[in-house]
């Protein structure tokens, strides 16, 4: 049996009286794109923050390549973190730095690359993200979608082995959303990286995901492939289908639930 790259065993986390994660068990495998879906406010970002160590579980254990994070020395944990990059839901761009400086910052602080090498790498990423017109602008001068792409460029600039994306396509137009999703899929193919995504872009996100995880009432209620997901009747998917089908019927009367099921294969 494959050892998970990242594993949660009975992880519990509460904020005051509200239990966000309730003995959650999760497995993330190497070289796979794993997508966590769930309703807003169910603790998806909290889950992701536990992976990178921004939050610590109250109970339970987190394992990295089979080793308990709790038992790791600071040096060992830093070595693990070296491979991980994180893209924040609200972008967390450095607001007193320009777009260029934001993207170059991880390289200038954590690598020994010289200025020319950094500039070359950053400009190539800026070009790829379609940000060439805003290189010298500050985050507050950009639209939400652009800020998201800057955050994405910054997360990928160090060529990490594991990338945690917290809603990478939120606020993007359909074209750019597809560009970002296809870029994640292409990266995985090219470099074999491991991606953990949080997304609400159902069903688009299913096309690039190797595994889908549903966070439901504090637990990972489902973990498996898209094909496996279509075979079960999960309340989250049921609610989703109902909401879309009802909306379409009300607006146009054209799309029935059956047609929707055929179109999106859910």
């Amino acid at each position, binding site marked *: 049996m494959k050892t998970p790259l990242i594993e949660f065993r009975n992880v519990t986390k509460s904020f005051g009286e509200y239990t966000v994660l309730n003995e959650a068990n999760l497995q993330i495998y190497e070289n796979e794109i794993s997508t966590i879906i769930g309703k807003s406010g169910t603790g998806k970002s909290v889950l992701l923050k536990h992976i990178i160590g921004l939050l610590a579980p109250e109970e339970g254990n987190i394992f990295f390549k089979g080793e308990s994070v709790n038992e790791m020395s600071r040096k060992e944990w830093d070595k693990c973190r070296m491979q991980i*990059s994180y893209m*924040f839901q609200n972008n967390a761009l450095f607001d007193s730095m320009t777009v260029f400086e934001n993207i170059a910052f991880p390289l200038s602080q*954590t690598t020994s690359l010289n200025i020319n090498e950094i500039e070359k790498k950053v400009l190539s990423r800026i070009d790829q993200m379609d940000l060439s017109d805003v290189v010298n602008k500050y985050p507050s001068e950009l639209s939400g979608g652009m800020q998201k792409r800057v955050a994405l460029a910054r997360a990928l600039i*160090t060529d990490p082995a594991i990338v945690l994306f917290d809603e990478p396509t939120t606020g993007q137009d359909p074209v750019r959303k597809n560009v970002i999703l296809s870029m994640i899929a292409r990266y995985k193919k090219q470099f074999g990286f491991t991606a953990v995504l949080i997304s609400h872009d159902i069903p688009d996100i299913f096309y690039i995901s190797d595994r889908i995880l549903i966070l439901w009432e504090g637990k990972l209620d489902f973990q498996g492939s898209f094909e496996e997901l279509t075979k079960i009747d999960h309340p989250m998917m049921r609610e989703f289908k109902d909401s879309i089908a009802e909306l379409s019927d009300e607006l146009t009367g054209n799309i029935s639930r059956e047609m929707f099921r055929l179109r999106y294969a859910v």
Partner: protein
Amino acid sequence: MKLINNLGSSVIFFVSAFLKIFRPKQIREIVQQVFFIGAKSSNIVMLIGLFTGMVLGLQLFYTLKKFGSEGFLGSVIALTLIRELGPVLTAIMITARAGSAMTAEIGILRISEQIDALYTMRIDPIRYLISPRIAAAIISFPLLTAFFDLIGILGGYLTGVVLLGVNKGAYFYRIDAYVDMTDIRGGFIKSLVFAVLVSTICCYEGYFTHLRTGSYGAKSVGISTTSAVVLSCIMILISDYVITSFLM
């Protein structure tokens, strides 16, 4: 209990930040902070120094005149400034100008998850944000205090000698005769202690602004900033008394 907790964690916070001053890639950040805390505060510090010296010149002239000792004006102004008012007023001015900005800036970085972003990039936030500020304060406070003292003595000269007619030679001769290195050293020890206190309090309040109970977001940053300034001023005055007791 909470007070002891805070005291303990702020000491650990300072020691951890101080040790990280000597890590690589710090020079640029420290220079930037010296510019912000030191160079940019110099105008206001010198202005306050000038008027403090001028008002001391006026007040002390009339007091000393009652004892027929106006010839001692220079030495009294210099000793007052070097031993007491220079370090204290400089520290309070820097707290108001740069300390409040430190707390607000770090607090905003915290609530907008920029400090978390540093952590995820494996950039130690204490090393990157706090250590340069503490180093810059330790460099800037004594320098600005020296400026304050000099300009203050000049201010005293303007009112005492130029306006009120005290003998110019006596003014400077008495300074030379009565001010010794012990006085100057004492003033600098105070300014170094104030630098550590102000920078630690202001950075600590900003860094842990998210742990403040009962207020969130921008309001929390505002309260942290106010609290940092008030606490710094109180600590300056308390520590001034304690250091003076030891130095006397």
